[in-house]
């Protein structure tokens, strides 16, 4: 029964992946890439990793796909680079080599594979959390997550750096030069409130069931983008103090809690007993806000001179 489900899923994943790299219209290839993200999400569900599935669909398929779609629609990038056959052959050989190595490794890995999952399960009660993934992200490997939020901020700064800094107070260029549309307006008015609720739920539920700051933040970012595209709200001015504070909130609230750990608990990023859960939630609120803002701004792109 499971093979009946998994085999088509695997075949579809391969087919969509081939479509995404196989040349031709850039737009169609990006669409295939987004579909690939969705299929990968299903595969993660089948592998019993719903947290990864949610992130893959929201960020890998959705947000990344949106960025690629914009690039595909941009006339400056859509001119095809003539890459020779040799290039394709080299890339294919490299990819096959990595595939062969991976296949060999999967066969070589010890069975059952050693895992830290039992240790996580043993120590999870100390964190007041129910979702082991959140436990690993916010408690056991808090340093990695903290720095990942910084990575997101730095990536956004990298995107902004493509515009000269006097423009950094302005707004990003509009996503699509699309005429106002009744259908889009209707869609945004109905979906955005529901989506915001879902985004907040995903983050809130993340403490105990699959979900969390990254997934919730991605959904919130998507809702903001939908509202901007439908013309319900303008693209934000990037110089706005509140916007920049929102960007800094996640990494620096996390850092602040971490530093406080030296004084009220035993170590950096150690949460004091008794208020562990409220502190973790507070950090997650800040992270979710920063991720939502940063992802939306990454899609909106560098600030442009505001066209009169």
């Amino acid at each position, binding site marked *: 029964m499971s093979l009946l489900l998994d085999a088509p899923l695997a075949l579809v994943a391969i087919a969509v992946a081939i479509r995404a790299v196989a040349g031709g219209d850039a737009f169609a290839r990006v669409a295939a890439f987004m579909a690939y993200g969705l299929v990968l999400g299903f595969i993660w569900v089948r592998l019993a990793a719903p947290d990864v599935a949610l992130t893959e669909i929201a960020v890998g398929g959705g947000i990344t796909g949106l960025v690629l779609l914009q690039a595909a629609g941009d006339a400056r990038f859509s001119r095809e680079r003539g890459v020779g056959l040799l290039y394709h052959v080299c890339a294919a050989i490299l990819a096959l080599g990595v595939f062969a190595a991976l296949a060999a490794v999967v066969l070589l890995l010890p069975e059952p594979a050693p895992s830290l999952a039992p240790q996580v399960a043993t120590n999870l009660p100390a964190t007041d959390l129910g979702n082991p993934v959140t436990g690993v992200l916010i408690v056991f490997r808090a340093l990695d997550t903290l720095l990942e939020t910084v990575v997101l901020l730095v990536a956004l700064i990298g995107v902004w750096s493509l515009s000269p800094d006097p423009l950094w107070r302005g707004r990003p260029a509009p996503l699509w030069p699309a005429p106002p549309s009744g259908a*889009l307006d209707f869609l945004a008015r109905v979906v955005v409130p529901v989506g915001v609720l879902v985004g907040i739920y995903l983050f809130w539920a993340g403490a105990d069931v699959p979900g969390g700051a990254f997934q919730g933040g991605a959904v919130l970012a998507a809702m903001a983008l939908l509202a901007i595209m439908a013309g319900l709200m303008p693209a934000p001015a990037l110089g706005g103090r509140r916007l920049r504070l929102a960007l800094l909130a996640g990494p620096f609230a996390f850092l602040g809690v971490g530093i406080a750990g030296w004084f009220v608990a035993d170590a950096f990023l150690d949460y004091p007993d008794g208020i562990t859960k409220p502190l973790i939630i507070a950090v997650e609120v800040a992270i979710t806000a920063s991720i939502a803002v940063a992802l939306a701004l990454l899609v909106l792109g560098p600030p442009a001179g505001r066209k009169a």
Partner: protein
Amino acid sequence: MTLALNIFTLLVVAAGLLFFIVGTVGLLRLPDALARLHALTKADNIGLGLVVLGLLPQAVALWGVLAAAKMVGIWLLLQVSSGAVSQLMAEVAYRAAQRKDSEGGAAP
């Protein structure tokens, strides 16, 4: 009782799948973009509605009313988004077709 509900599920889900098949055939065989969208959205909405309807008794039996309500919610959201999105796609396709027509008229 369970048997009756199971038979209900089987029949209604099968009917829903039939709509999906018809919609997919329409997507593949119909001549232009507007007609394809037409076939696809109608079939999808009814098809998914039937699948959800068929699964409702199972959801109630297994996980309670809340799970069933969530499924209805999913169906409603999909109604809205697929309707709106196909409208958007149709607008684009319609405009592209018009542009082609006017260019074709101007050429000779």
